[in-house]
């Protein structure tokens, strides 16, 4: 059991620079076990940069602190953060030609669990996850994201989350490029993963996915800062009124 009185995930005064330009300008966030948060903001506000920085992108200059289950993550490389239980669902998953989905997943599972997964057990888990996300079995033999449609890539991201069972998952624009059926399936996968012992941060431009994945807390992120936090009704307000009415100068603290 995780200790409920401490946040499962938090960051303090997080700042990110890319080539001397400050993109994320001091973000504080606490997310407790069992919670789903949404981070919403207009295009170009730095949402994806924030998500990649939290995961440990090697070419970003990052200041501030990041904690998972009370352990500092900010000095760890991306792969160490992943093994500790962080996960990033990519907006644009990268193709790795010549590497089959099955081989990649088996290596990732081994890294996450710290031990080899017997072939038969791996196959069973994989096929279950394929069923959940309505993925064809021949997916396993295809090369990782190579020639995949946008929808296939997003399903594969959620599939990885299902298998790796992260403590804290960042999902960057998982809803973009999905038709309504795919969105429902992907949302179902997200809801299946979400439980009392883990937490999610959905990074999104639209509130479309939030009709299927109900957030506990919604943050508005503009020009590198969190400008407001609230309940799910904030997402609906954003849908109706857009982002313009929010003053970027008001800095909200975001404690869930």
């Amino acid at each position, binding site marked *: 059991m995780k200790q409920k009185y401490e946040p499962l995930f938090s960051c303090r005064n997080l700042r990110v620079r890319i080539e001397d330009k400050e993109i994320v300008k001091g973000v504080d966030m606490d997310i407790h076990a069992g919670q789903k948060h949404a981070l919403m903001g207009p295009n170009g506000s730095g949402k994806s940069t924030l998500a990649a920085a939290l995961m440990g992108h090697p070419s970003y200059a990052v200041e501030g602190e990041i904690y998972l289950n009370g352990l500092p993550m900010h000095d760890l490389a991306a792969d160490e953060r992943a093994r500790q239980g962080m996960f990033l669902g990519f907006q644009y998953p990268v193709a790795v030609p010549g*590497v089959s989905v099955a081989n990649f997943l088996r290596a990732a599972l081994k890294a996450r669990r710290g031990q080899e997964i017997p072939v038969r057990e791996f196959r069973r888990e994989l096929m279950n996850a394929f069923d959940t996300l309505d993925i064809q079995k021949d997916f396993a033999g295809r090369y990782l994201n190579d020639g995949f449609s946008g929808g296939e890539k997003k399903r594969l991201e959620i599939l990885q989350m299902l298998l790796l069972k992260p403590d804290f998952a960042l999902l960057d624009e998982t809803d973009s490029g999905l038709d309504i059926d795919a969105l429902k399936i992907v949302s179902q996968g997200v809801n299946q993963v979400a439980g009392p012992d883990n937490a999610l941060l959905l990074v999104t431009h639209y509130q479309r996915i939030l009709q299927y994945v109900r957030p506990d807390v919604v943050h508005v992120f503009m020009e590198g800062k969190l400008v407001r936090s609230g309940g799910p009704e904030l997402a609906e307000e954003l849908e109706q009124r857009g982002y313009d009415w929010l003053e970027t100068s008001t800095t909200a603290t975001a404690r869930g």
Partner: protein
Amino acid sequence: MKASPITDLNQDYKAKYGFHDPEEYIHKAPKGLSHEVVEMISRYKQEPDWMRRFRHEALDIFLAKPMPKWGNQELLGSIDFDNIHYYLKPQGEQASSWDDVPENIKRTFDRLGVPEAERKFLAGVTAQYESEVVYHSIREDLAKQNVLFTDMDSGLREHPEIVRKYFATIIPPTDNKFAALNSAVWSGGSFIYVPPHTKVEIPLQAYFRINAENMGQFERTLIIADEGSSVHYIEGCTAPVYSSDSLHSAVVELIALDSAHIRYTTIQNWSTNVFNLVTKRAYAHKDAVVEWVDGNLGSKLTMKYPAIYLMGERAHGEVLSVAFAGDGQHQDAGAKMIHAAPNTTSRIISKSISKGEGRSSYRGLVKVAKGAENCKTSVECDALLIGEKARSDTFPTMEIAEDDVKVEHEARVSKLAEEQLFYLQSRGLDIDQARLMIVNGFIEPFVRELPMEYAVELNRLIELEMEGSIG
């Protein structure tokens, strides 16, 4: 970041392949090249007079020809032809049972896994040690089908009519300086003749081992696949690690008669003190298929451009190659396709990986002769650079003398992409695992074509080469 990768590689290479036996030779030619050395080799082998004269003429051609003016001039210029032994006969006679091979030579091939591979999945094996084949065997069923598979010297003695008909017809000594050198001092190599409509389903293998320091190995291979037959030949090679250079200069001629199929697979893993300057060429007659599957991992400098002359209608040629150049290595490899008949097709896929200060070059020629109508050819060159100092060059040439030809050409150079690494790392793979996965994926189209045992071995070698970090 960990220690430099090249030390990791060499340490392992030394233990696994880079050891050497004490030198025990029946005959060791003094260093240097002359008509006396050529005469001695020919007399020692008790060759027919035509071959003796062929050697002497080839030596004159070698001496007259200048060094190539292209390629890596610095490395080519550093070859000291006077500091090489051109012929070395190890102790013992050629054996057809490993028990009859001299003990330390047998031990060497045991360490290299040759007898084990033979038991598991090969139809025939020759094992060459320095200048001579010390072990040879072919499965009985193939011998009964009159498939000829011997070392080249035995081929010349036992089947002079076939050898004289085809020898040096594809690659004459005048072709290039190193073909002339091989023609003058050749020794060992394989001779294969597959009778009409005979399919050799299981691969034949030759393993070439250099043991002595400053050794020159000049094997000569001739493969003839008669009408409608097929054969797959695999060669591997290694050498001890020495501080001074050795020279390997082979000539390989393939003849695929009408509707025949030859596949020739090479896993070249010389130590990094070996110059590997090889001429390989095939004739594919009507409806024949020739495939070169060429992997270059080792050597200091490799210059090798397997060629296929598509001589008859509907012949098909493929070259599928992978080169890996680490620190201090230059893999100058490529392919040549000559479309000399109508309706012929060809495909070249060349993949290179340059790591650290390694350098790889693709040098290729596609030629469609006048009258060779309705040909199709595609060339795909893919270079992967790992590290800031890694280098890759591409020198493609196309000479198309017909209009009705379909040509596709693609060339890509990519750096090991940070976004790929981040993606894999975000799933828990550490940086070395992530790099290895990307590289293995990159060469997968090549590995897929290898027999399973070789694919496993190649992946293991790549893993060693990738060990440690690149600053």
